[in-house]
């Protein structure tokens, strides 16, 4: 065994394969939703999304053209020719087909089916058919053909068009998207400003009761916000804020503060003491030290918290439901819109998948762009 530190372990292959399996397992659910949001409702309902990546197989019912208008005489027989797929507006190639619903795969493409009497029909892969028989047989309605067609993968932006850019769609996400944005931005920025000052005082100013305040912040870090719902709603209704943006901004600010203060204080305590003392000797006031030295140096911690708070307010459902959304529903946010769609459009996956993906997309972009700060914030917030 070459099992020495620095050299490759004999388990390397097993490790690679199991990591790959885990990664695929974790990615699979999201990819399913992503692919589904680019398929039409019919496609989603008739085959699993994984089938959309390869050639799609689909059973459809086609009908030959109306014989009374289209038949032409050929000797003592009559013939109707045309293209089955074009007539139905379908695309793809026919693999197998049949003339009865009980045997839809009776013939392969190009074969000729013998029907009653002298009646025959030939269908090729492209959908061209030749239906011939006596005058009586080629009459009435067009011959039905049950065909299995394979079509190349087909994706559409129709769902996004419909959910985002169609102003007449009352279930659209555009309004909810802007509402979410309106909630998120002030609810992210305001707690940072308030918390930064408090964190500076708790980290670098000496005053009686400081330790107690820090302990209080740590304690409040885990208080479930469920406790705050009714008292604060009563308070908001009592002082006239009611349900609305102001209420939800204040609530998010209050709920975000403990983590903000905790993260920022932990970071600021680690800044070098010399810089601050030098500035004091040079006659800088605390306010100047804070704005000119501490804030720029604390940028990583500020970014960490900003991402946390952004993700949390963007993804929040409970606080918005309690403090923001009134009975008119004008101020609905995306998460709430999705839960409502889950209730009313439970089976319409093209709508659900698109709505969910619209709401997921922005946090995902932020996540991948700022992952470094997020990881740093998590580490500072937990391993202390």
């Amino acid at each position, binding site marked *: 065994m070459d099992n020495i530190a620095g050299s490759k372990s004999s388990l390397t292959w097993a490790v690679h394969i199991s990591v790959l399996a885990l990664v695929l397992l974790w990615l699979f659910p999201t990819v399913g939703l992503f692919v589904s949001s680019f398929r039409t409702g019919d496609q989603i309902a008739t085959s699993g999304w994984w089938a959309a990546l390869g050639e799609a197989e689909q059973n459809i019912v086609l009908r030959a053209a109306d014989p009374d208008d289209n038949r032409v005489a050929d000797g003592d027989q009559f013939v109707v020719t045309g293209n089955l797929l074009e007539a139905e507006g379908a695309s793809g190639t026919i693999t197998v087909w049949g003339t009865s619903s009980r045997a839809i795969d009776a013939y392969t493409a190009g074969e000729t089916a013998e029907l009653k009497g002298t009646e025959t029909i030939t269908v090729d892969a492209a959908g061209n058919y030749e239906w011939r028989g006596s005058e009586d047989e080629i009459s009435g309605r067009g011959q039905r053909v049950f065909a299995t067609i394979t079509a190349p993968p087909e994706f559409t932006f129709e769902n996004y068009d419909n959910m985002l850019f169609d102003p007449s769609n009352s279930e659209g996400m555009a309004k909810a998207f802007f509402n979410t944005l309106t909630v998120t931005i002030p609810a992210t920025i305001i707690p940072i*400003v*308030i918390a930064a*000052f*408090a964190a500076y005082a708790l980290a670098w100013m000496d005053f009686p009761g400081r330790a107690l305040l820090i302990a209080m912040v740590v304690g409040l870090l885990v208080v*479930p916000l*469920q406790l705050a719902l*009714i008292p604060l709603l009563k308070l908001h209704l009592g002082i006239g804020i009611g349900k609305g943006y102001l209420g939800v901004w*204040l609530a998010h600010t209050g709920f975000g503060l403990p983590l903000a203060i905790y993260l920022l204080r932990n970071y600021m305590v680690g800044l070098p003491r010399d810089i601050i003392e030098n500035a004091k000797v040079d006659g800088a006031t605390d306010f100047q030290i804070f704005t000119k030295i501490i804030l720029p140096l604390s940028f990583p911690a500020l970014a960490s918290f900003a991402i946390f708070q952004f993700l949390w307010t963007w993804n929040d459902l409970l606080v918005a439901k309690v403090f923001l959304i009134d009975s008119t529903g004008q101020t609905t946010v995306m998460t709430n819109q999705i839960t409502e769609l889950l209730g009313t459009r439970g089976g319409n*996956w093209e709508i659900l998948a698109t709505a969910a993906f619209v709401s997921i997309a922005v946090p995902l972009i932020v996540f991948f762009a700022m992952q470094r700060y997020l990881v740093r914030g998590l580490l500072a917030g937990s391993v202390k």
Partner: protein
Amino acid sequence: MDAALLGLMTVVIGVGGCLGYFYFSNLFLDKVLFPATGPNAGRNINRANQIRPWLFVFPAMFALALYLGYPVFETLRLSLTDRDQGGAFVGFANYNQMFAEAKFWEAMRNNMLWLIVVPAASTAFGLLVAQLTDRIGWGNIAKSVIFMPMAISFVGASVIFKLIYDARPEGTAQIGVLNAVWMQFEGGFGSVLFLKVMPVLMLLAFAAVVAYVGYIILRMTGGVWVTLLKAFGGLFAIWMVFLSLKSVLGVATAELPYGEPQNWLTLPFYNNFFLMVVLIWIQTGFAMVILSAALRGIPEETVEAAIVDGANPFQIFFKIKVPQIMPTIVVVWTTITLTVLKVFDIVFAMTNGQWQTQVLANYMYDKLFRANDWGVGSAAAIIIMLLVSPILIWNVYNARKEMR
């Protein structure tokens, strides 16, 4: 659009207001109240410096007190009053009413199940991924992918998993992955292997792990607290082993409905696990990030010494690495426990507590905003608070210890 304008104005006014408050209150303190000039300059500077910290912390402390401190006591008060009687004090009537409800005990039972399964599974998966990706070249990409669900909202994740659990009538193509896989089993050899032998082996392995952990706990020595922990941990381990052995019997003898698509979210008892999968999927990334950093922090010499002594990779992992990162594992575990106690969105979006999937947070929401019963709703919130408070006390205790 005017809401967006309002938002922008709020940002400007809010941020400007905060900065203005800090700037002008400092200015007022230094120039008007205690000016650093005149005969009392020295005394004034000292006084100003005593007051200044309070200027800095005041807005934050005020907001914390109003938005998190006050509600704790107000909720406690509300839980002892009745809204219909005009807020009259009713003692423990709300609690009695709640304890008499079957739905409450269902929520408690499910919450306990969540509390055991989700932190355990997330931490275990997180540790597994952290260890596996530690030494491979594309580890960071793998970690990114597994970390990604952290950015997805609980509601979004619920939609994602509802698609996976979707069921179509028998005879039509299944569009949910789980049912598509399920329809592949028809009772033959493969089905027995995957649905009987493998679960039995997994349950036996679980029972063995629990028994081993119980054995470690029983071997600990120490004071009163350790004895208490030993008694509690030992009993709990025996109970878990008993449960898993009972399930082995259940799995081995169960008649599975092969060939019928299943409505996974309406299967009593098991649907809880299908909901938990969503949270495990999200929280594993969190556990992985933290444990990965902890694994990196292990002194290299300890691992090298173990290799020189001839330890195999499994021994290195379980006997060298895991004991060294135990404190971090506890932190991860408790953090996920807190998330689990507050889980609301997933249950609300996927089943809304039907089919015996109720949890406390959703029960509370139900009482508060559907039944409009603020008394019982507040009582449920207090129960959540009680469940959280051991962690709260532990955190505060640790923070104080660190500060000294």
